[in-house]
């Protein structure tokens, strides 16, 4: 793991560990239009735009790199019917995403993988589409 990745884990792990309460969810809905435990800048309208740009549909395989708690990859799986693999370094966010996936009945179409974007454990051409939101800066 690089120094940058270790800093990312430190920065986000504690944040992801605490489950969002009702006020936090209300704030998130007011700011970005969703309540998936996100804390960034991708709005619901922009998540939908990603789905259209990538032509996501049932059967399509999506990789969300830097998925955090599942925004927007898990949302896109729900909204479009695609399969989604959520990858990130902090395990805490992926655990929250997996729990949300269970609650949304997405367990059969969504999986979480802890790993760095520099060395993802997938063969070439595994996915039809890749998305990431404010991971590369």
């Amino acid at each position, binding site marked *: 793991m690089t120094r*940058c990745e270790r*800093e*990312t884990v430190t*920065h986000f792990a504690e944040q992801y560990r*605490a489950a969002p*309460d009702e*006020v*936090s969810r209300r*704030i998130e809905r*007011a*700011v*970005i239009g969703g309540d998936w435990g996100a804390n960034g*800048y*991708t*709005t619901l309208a*922009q998540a939908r*735009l*990603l789905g259209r*740009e*990538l032509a996501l549909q049932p059967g399509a395989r999506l990789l969300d790199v830097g998925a955090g708690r599942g925004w927007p990859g898990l949302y896109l799986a729900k909204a479009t019917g695609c399969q989604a693999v959520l990858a990130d370094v902090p395990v805490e966010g992926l655990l929250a995403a997996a729990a949300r996936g269970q609650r949304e009945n997405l367990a059969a179409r969504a999986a979480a993988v802890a790993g760095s974007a520099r060395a993802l454990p997938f063969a070439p051409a595994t996915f039809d*589409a*890749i*998305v*990431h*939101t*404010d*991971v*590369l*800066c």
Partner: protein
Amino acid sequence: MAFFTIHPAAGLTRAQRRRASRDGPVAVATARPYRELLSAAGFQQVTETDCTAEFAAVTGAWIHQWEANHQHLVALLGKQAIEERQAERRAQLRAIEDSILSRSLFTACRP
């Protein structure tokens, strides 16, 4: 592939680039335009859509919502964490308004 990313605006001075790295989210430091990087990596049909206005609106909305729910968030996260995060967001918003930080949607395909 499609992705949103926060990046220094085009045509900045060296001092402005330092400010973009300082006031943007962690590691806003890319030295080359993403369009160039994607093309160099072999991606084709690269498109770029500027989303900076929405970025400013969302940053402002986080600041406003955290101010409106300050007492609750202090109890949840602690006063210092709230004040630090709000200061970071205000600096980021100033950098956006000063045309130093941008956010774009890129799309690209593999051959």
